[in-house]
């Protein structure tokens, strides 16, 4: 059966050399960062960036572009939903589970890292809400929205992860269709109450895309200009909204649990009982809890040392690269191999015997990338993410310290707990890949 939605092939264990070197690099880099990086906060957040050429900015920001793309994405989403509910009942022949679990969920990561918060712009739920809101009028609870932060987004992501990793028959098309319907209805209902701003806080996919989009080389400056910028600046500009730490913890914990289900340790324990929803649910919550405890202890101590309460959400952005690294490490090969299946099955989405793109009988080409390349990408993703996170955490500690009066020794000590948390997560990520 299928650990992460669809696909019954798992990556080979990472070579031990990679794990050792990667772990050493992460640890050494952490202390080099502590000792050698800058002494006062330098990242400029939303003030940084060099404007893109005017013609490009005009094209990107044009309402025509926005609406064409939105309608396209809405159309594709409807096709996937209809295929799920009315197409072939078997997962091997229905495009919907592949489109959701691989093309969309995994694809969101590179798309957002490269292009910015794409789902914020293209979210079909927003398109539907634009129509619905004409009938329902102004949102009655829009004022309460800021207080919620991204807590609802964390819940949404946890719900999706449960669906992907633990729900019974999670790869069956009808289940996928049901999930999509329920998710859409709940989100639209919430938007009717809280307004369009809900999606940026309550739609887990949009929240994830917006966070990842901060690491892109393009971004939106404080004055609204579309700019090229250093991803570190981009992420440092992420405001510390309530619940941000929960979103990051859910993402790392759930992806980590996906990795756990691929290890011999878990598989031996499960004795081949792949369908056990209870064990998977407990494991999922356990993994999230472990990451949560790690983070809360680390950020908590960091805040105490700095003499500043309430830093929990301010260190969360430095873990976003680690969440992205985990996602790349666990899903890279899935995207390139089993992800091809989406395009094959798209030739006949409604089980009518069509062959729209001539690909319905194609088989996955497993030669597109070698297992050695996969291992290298996995290790580089985890370790590289750690390096990026280090710089972000360092700068954030300095920024917090500056607010408290600027005591360099304190800034140094305040960083240490977060660095250790990040080393723990990186080592954990590498160990999970040992299989």
């Amino acid at each position, binding site marked *: 059966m299928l650990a992460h939605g669809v696909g019954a092939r798992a990556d080979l264990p990472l070579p031990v050399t990679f794990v050792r070197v990667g772990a050493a*690099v992460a640890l050494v880099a952490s202390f080099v960062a502590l000792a050698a990086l800058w002494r006062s906060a330098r990242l400029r957040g939303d003030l940084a960036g060099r404007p893109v050429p005017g013609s490009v900015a005009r094209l990107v920001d044009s309402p025509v572009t926005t609406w064409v793309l939105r309608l396209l994405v809405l159309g594709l989403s409807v096709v996937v939903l209809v295929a799920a509910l009315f197409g072939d009942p078997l997962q091997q022949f229905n495009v919907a589970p592949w489109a959701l679990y691989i093309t969309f969920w995994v694809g969101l990561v590179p798309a957002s890292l490269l292009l910015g918060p794409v789902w914020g712009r293209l979210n079909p739920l927003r398109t539907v809400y634009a129509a619905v809101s004409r009938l329902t009028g102004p949102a009655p609870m829009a004022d309460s929205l800021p207080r919620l932060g991204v807590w609802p987004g964390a819940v949404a992501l946890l719900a999706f992860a449960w669906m992907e990793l633990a729900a019974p028959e999670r790869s069956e098309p009808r289940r996928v269709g049901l999930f999509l319907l329920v998710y859409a209805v709940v989100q639209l209902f919430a938007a009717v109450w809280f307004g369009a701003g809900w999606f940026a806080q309550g739609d887990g996919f949009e929240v994830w895309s917006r966070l990842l989009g901060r690491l892109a080389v393009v971004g939106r400056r404080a004055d609204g200009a579309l700019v090229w910028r250093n991803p570190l600046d981009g992420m440092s500009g992420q405001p510390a909204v309530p619940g941000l730490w929960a979103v990051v913890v859910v993402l790392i914990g759930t992806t980590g649990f996906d990795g756990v289900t691929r290890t011999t340790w878990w598989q*031996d324990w499960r004795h081949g009982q792949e369908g056990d929803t209870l064990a998977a649910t407990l494991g999922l919550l356990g993994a999230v809890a472990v990451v949560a405890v790690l983070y809360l202890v680390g950020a908590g101590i960091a805040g105490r040392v700095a003499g500043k309460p309430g830093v929990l959400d301010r260190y969360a952005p430095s873990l976003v690269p680690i969440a992205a690294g985990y996602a790349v490490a666990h899903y890279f090969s899935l995207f390139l191999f089993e992800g091809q299946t989406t395009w094959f099955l798209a030739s006949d989405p409604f089980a009518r015997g069509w062959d729209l793109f001539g690909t319905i009988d194609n088989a996955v080409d497993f030669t597109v990338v070698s297992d050695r390349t996969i291992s290298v990408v996995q290790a580089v993703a985890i370790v590289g993410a750690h390096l990026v996170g280090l710089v972000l955490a360092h700068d954030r500690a300095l920024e917090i310290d500056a607010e408290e009066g600027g005591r360099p020794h304190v800034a140094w000590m305040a960083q240490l707990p977060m660095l250790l948390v990040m080393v723990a997560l990186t080592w954990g990520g590498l160990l999970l890949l040992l299989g």
Partner: protein
Amino acid sequence: MVGACPCTEGTDVPVLRRAVPALLSAVLLSACGGGDPSTIETPEPTATASAPGAPTATASASPTSTLPPGVDQLVRVTVRGGEVVGGAQRVKVKKGSVVRLLVTSDVADEVHLHTYDESVDVAAGSTAALTFTAAIAGVIEVELEEAGLTLVRLQIQ
């Protein structure tokens, strides 16, 4: 609407510009070194095929059986009472070798080798054989379709 703003070009990070390529090179260079199968430290509950021609038994004991011609590795699994005898193991397979999977089941079902998408029906109380060339690397599941039972995982590299 680009008005006046206290905006800057952005932050240059010279330490990163030097450190990151060095660190990445370290990782990539290590990729050229180790990584051969013998360095993989997967918890290994069964014997691995260390010499060509040596059979690998996962569940039943048949240490002295010789291999059929053209077959490099035998993998045996027994299903009894809805469970795999000895539990679903992870068996190492050399990429490119010819593997014969022998599944003995007390119920009729279909043995499905994922990723390779090969199947063979097994009758109740008998043994079915599925022979294939392990061309695709990875950890591949073999499943008893109707029962939804994972029989064995083949670590092909």
